[in-house]
């Protein structure tokens, strides 16, 4: 059985009279351990799709299953638990909490899964080490470069050891060289067995991914 399954998913925004079909009948399966690149022109619905995969948003129509959870019908707390345990999400704009230091930011998902303080510390340190930031654990985000911020965000996505890692243009705010190191990290994660799906504009990255999902006008082509 596939890890992620979408069937006839529609996401429709209604702005007064106008109806925007951000996703218009998407069916898709992603298997355990896959490394998928999602590509397509601007406004085609890539971010909308990622938000639905990440349980951040709800579909207007259709069926979505993540692992064994029917998230198209699950309640808010069930979605929160799925986000917490099964998914690590990396944003284009990092989305770190400015008042917390690196370690505290990385610990955040563990706080909400009720892990003890000592274990939080050790697991966060491990994740920060995995992205190569062991020497910056007590810095605040505004004391870090963009690439370092994104690495903290990746450490946060990893810390609860989720099966799925989703990233929406993780290199969009970075220069190409820094972006390269970030993408290397994702490939490494994929090689370690995580299921990775990322939105990218980089043709090289897309070529490197074993699978490419092309989306246009809310439909997979």
């Amino acid at each position, binding site marked *: 059985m596939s890890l992620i399954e979408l069937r006839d998913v529609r996401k429709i925004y209604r702005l007064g009279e106008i109806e925007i079909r951000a996703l218009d009948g998407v069916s898709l399966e992603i298997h355990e351990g896959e490394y998928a690149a999602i590509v397509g022109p601007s406004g085609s619905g890539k971010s909308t799709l990622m938000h639905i995969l990440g349980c*951040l948003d*709800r579909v207007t129509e259709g069926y979505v299953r993540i692992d064994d959870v029917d998230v198209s019908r699950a309640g*808010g707390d069930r979605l929160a*638990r799925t986000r917490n*345990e099964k998914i690590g999400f990396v944003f284009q704009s990092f989305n770190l909490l400015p008042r917390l230091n690196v370690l505290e930011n990385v610990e955040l998902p563990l706080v909400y899964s009720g892990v003890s303080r000592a274990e939080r510390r050790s697991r966060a340190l491990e994740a920060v080490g995995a992205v190569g930031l062991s020497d910056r654990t007590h810095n605040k985000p505004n004391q870090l470069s963009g690439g370092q911020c994104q690495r903290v965000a990746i450490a946060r996505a990893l810390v609860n050891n989720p099966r799925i890692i989703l990233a929406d243009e993780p290199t969009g705010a970075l220069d190409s060289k820094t972006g390269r190191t970030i993408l290397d990290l994702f490939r490494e994660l994929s090689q370690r067995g995580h299921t990775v799906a990322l939105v990218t504009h980089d043709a090289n990255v897309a070529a490197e991914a074993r699978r490419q999902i092309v989306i246009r006008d809310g439909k997979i082509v």
Partner: protein
Amino acid sequence: MKFLMGIGEGFREIRAHKFRSFLTMLGVVLGVASLLAMFALTEGIATGYREVMSQMGGLERVKVRVEPVPAHQESIRELSPGRTYKDALALRMNAPLLSWVSPELDLYLAVRRGDKAETFEVIGIEEDYLHTERHNLEYGRFLTDIDRRDHNRVCVIGRGVIERLWEDPEAVPLGESVRIGNEFFRIVGIFQRYESERDKKKRELRAKEAPPAQGPGAKTGKRSRWSTFRFKNDVVVVPITTFTTVFKNTKQAGTPDEGAELKLDDLNVQVADLNMFEEALAQIRQILMVTHRGIEDFSVETRQEMFDEMNAAMRNLHMSFGIIAGISLLVGGIGIMNIMLASISERIREIGIRRAVGARSGDIFGQIVIESTVLAALGGVAGLGAALLLMKLLVAISPVQNRPVVHMSAVIMSLTFAVGVGVLAGLYPAWRAAKLSPIEALRYE
């Protein structure tokens, strides 16, 4: 566990916005301070009332009053001898529910010592008087039944008499004589000085600063303000028998306006047990109905009404102060709510991030409520400090008669109120924050 973290989170938030948090707390600080001040002030006033009431003999003291004969008994009015000494004897003999019975005669008379003279209330009394009036003897002895039997010309005087006839207000002139009317009386006892706690402190302070001026021309103690205490201090008591022979001879039994027997100027009794108050009153009425031969020319006056009025006044005071303090706490609460609302719209992105990594909407709700409660509790503690300081200041400088009193229960109540306000003020912002979907919160700019 999560709860403790929430508190830590709350403190972090407060530290991050010190000035804003301070302004927010100010409302609660003032609210709690005024709440506590109100408790303390009303408690002070209540203490003052209780002091006065106790000096006046408390609820146990009951007075037998003379009343006009009712119209339907007008034709047989001659049957009643009126309020006489025999009433006192009858009550003492036949009313076991009364502990003391004090018949009194009184006149305002000139009291002289050397070339000084002042008018005082001079009262002819029996031994029970000491108890019904709640007098305390400081020096010498009280009047006895032997004084009464022998018609001794002895008296016990209040501190007010000494303050105005002697140079030294603290003098102890036992054994000396004063002239009351035209007769000399030997002083055998002196009552203590009656004063409010506050006056006492003031006097002791004055005495420490400047030892009383002595010698000719020195000012003697001036009359204290009108008060229950003054009535109790400015008094001269003599045996009732001596009083009759020396001062009331013109009103002796047999004179036309007094009827066949000597009439009392006052008759006060003390009820032994307040639980049997109504029964005691009935007993008094029954006995006096016999001695007055069925003529209803008397009434029994209790302090009940007066006490009820005072209690009602205290309740009103509590209420109006309470409303004022409540309003300021409300204002404080609205301040907190306002700040929390501002703080969440500033932090919608943060809320979105927390939701994205797995926070449930309940976690967000709890976090906001805890934050606002921590804020209010801190404000409450600060308000407590401010109020206690304010009280110190008030006690030290204010000329208010009724010194504020701070009770532990008032402190706990005020703090509870503050925390309650914090919780309530947090509910709406917390609900607003918690109902946002993760993606809405993340998209928020």
